């Protein structure tokens, strides 16, 4: 008897459930679990009564690998966490190491990090919008979003040579300066991108089916959001104005002007709308960064073989999915003693069993989509 059946049997024995409810396995092979996530859902007709997530299908013990690599060598592995926002993983890790080692990075590197980070946020939110459209049955939006995302990837490819796993940031700055004319390309991309947003809106925000599908479902109350330590758009969708870029600024985010969109009721619509507006805000930040980017070096002079002083640090950044934290304990050698990633989607996903009960199966898909999970990061 497999563990699944065993568990089912246990649940049956413990709860004594009636035969009118049925357990449905959503995943691990299911089109809308965004990877290999398995949700065990108890259905009463079409209504979800209970949800038990199972994950770990892509677990590769990232933290154990990290404990056995030098500080620089971990950077390529961080790409593989949240592969839709690799730059942010690099950033979070490098920032934690820089804080731990007390490295000041050059001004130009700070600006380029913000610029690239916000472009990454746009790309990540675009892919989220597209896949969310797919969850709701709108395939066209998915393709359109991918088209613009590809343009961002082209920009990143010109900078780092990679389209997905960039490993572009280094402890102390960036690996390379941007190529000539790249900033002009970013401007050209923004010129193209800004008129596309109303087109997305026509298919999504303004469309009545879209509105009716996601309004008032998957409500996450603010107190639950805090208790489950949700972060990013999930927390802001519940009406809490909390953005690490504003509330605990890292890098040079205190120099930029942008708004934090928040929702009101904490339903799927709010989470959608927060992300949709964050794309606008990211465009704003990119424009500001483009305007005052200074010349200079992009990498601080750091030793080839980095050693961190004994100590520990919990450092966090606001990735597109929420608070991406790195907890590093250094023992003075060239590799960390303990390296833990606080994955935002892992934490946000833990609130899913609170959001789902009482809604339909179709809503379960929408709610799961609105949490914006990346299974590689959940499983680590």
């Amino acid at each position: 008897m497999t563990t699944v059946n065993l568990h089912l049997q246990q649940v049956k024995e413990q709860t004594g459930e009636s035969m009118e409810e049925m357990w449905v396995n959503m995943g691990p092979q299911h089109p809308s679990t965004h990877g290999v996530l398995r949700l065990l859902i108890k259905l009463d007709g079409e209504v979800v009564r209970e949800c038990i997530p199972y994950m770990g299908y892509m677990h590769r013990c990232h933290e154990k690998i990290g404990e056995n690599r030098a500080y620089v060598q971990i950077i390529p592995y961080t790409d593989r966490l949240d592969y839709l926002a690799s730059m942010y993983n690099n950033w979070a890790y490098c920032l934690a190491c820089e804080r731990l080692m007390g490295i000041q990075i050059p001004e130009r590197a700070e600006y380029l990090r913000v610029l690239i980070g916000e472009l990454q946020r746009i790309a990540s939110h675009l892919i989220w919008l597209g896949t969310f459209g797919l969850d709701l049955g709108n395939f066209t939006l998915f393709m359109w979003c991918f088209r613009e995302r590809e343009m961002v990837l082209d920009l990143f490819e010109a900078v780092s040579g990679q389209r997905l796993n960039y490993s572009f940031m280094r402890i102390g700055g960036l690996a390379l300066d941007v190529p000539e004319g790249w900033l002009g390309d970013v401007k050209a991309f923004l010129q193209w991108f800004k008129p596309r947003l109303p087109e997305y809106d026509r298919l999504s925000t303004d469309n009545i089916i879209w509105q009716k599908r996601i309004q008032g479902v998957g409500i996450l109350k603010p107190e639950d959001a805090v208790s489950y330590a949700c972060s990013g758009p999930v927390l802001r969708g519940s009406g809490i104005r909390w953005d690490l870029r504003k509330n605990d600024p890292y890098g040079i985010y205190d120099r930029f002007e942008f708004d934090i969109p928040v929702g009101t009721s904490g339903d799927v619509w709010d989470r959608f709308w927060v992300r949709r507006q964050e794309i606008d805000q990211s465009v704003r930040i990119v424009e500001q960064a483009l305007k005052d980017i200074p010349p200079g070096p992009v990498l601080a002079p750091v030793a080839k073989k980095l050693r961190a002083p004994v100590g520990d640090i919990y450092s966090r950044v606001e990735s597109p999915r929420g608070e991406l934290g790195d907890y590093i304990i250094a023992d003075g050698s060239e590799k960390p003693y303990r390296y833990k990633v606080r994955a935002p989607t892992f934490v946000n996903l833990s609130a899913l069993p609170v959001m789902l009960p009482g809604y339909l199966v179709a809503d379960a898909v929408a709610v799961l989509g609105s949490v914006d999970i990346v299974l590689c990061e959940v499983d680590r």
Partner: protein
Amino acid sequence: MTAEEILQQIRARFASEVRTSEVRRGEATLTVKADQNFEICRFIKEELGFEYLNCLSGVDWIGENEMEVAYAISSLRQPGKIILRARVPRDEPVLRSVVPLWGTADWHEREAFDLFGIRFENHPDLRRILLPEDWIGHPLRKDYQDERFVPYPWDDRKPGSVVRPTTA
């Protein structure tokens, strides 16, 4: 509330529990004995008002024969961060669960149980979370052995030494 004040309040309340405490980079860092971890966490959450548990992480201090659970706690209403580290003996790593205080601790504690073998009392559903349920051992312990494990490449290597033959 500055980090010093936080530490003072905790020390005043749980004088016998706190092993070490210091302020680093503006964060209150303290190491406590494990038997009162739930009460200290409740004090931090309910009386100091730090209602947001960022991260819960296990650490294996094999040299000191101890296990540690590090809570990174902050607040959405006030600045300041607390890193609370509860030490338990390595042979009997048992702590009180903080799930009643923070819902998010549920999966974090399951992860610590899964990868470190730290057991949490009063946890509603302490199962493995990332590894299969029939997995043997706890991989993040420092003495965990696995033949598939790729060691740190810089160990025991002199320049030019051959590690393994490859064919082209």
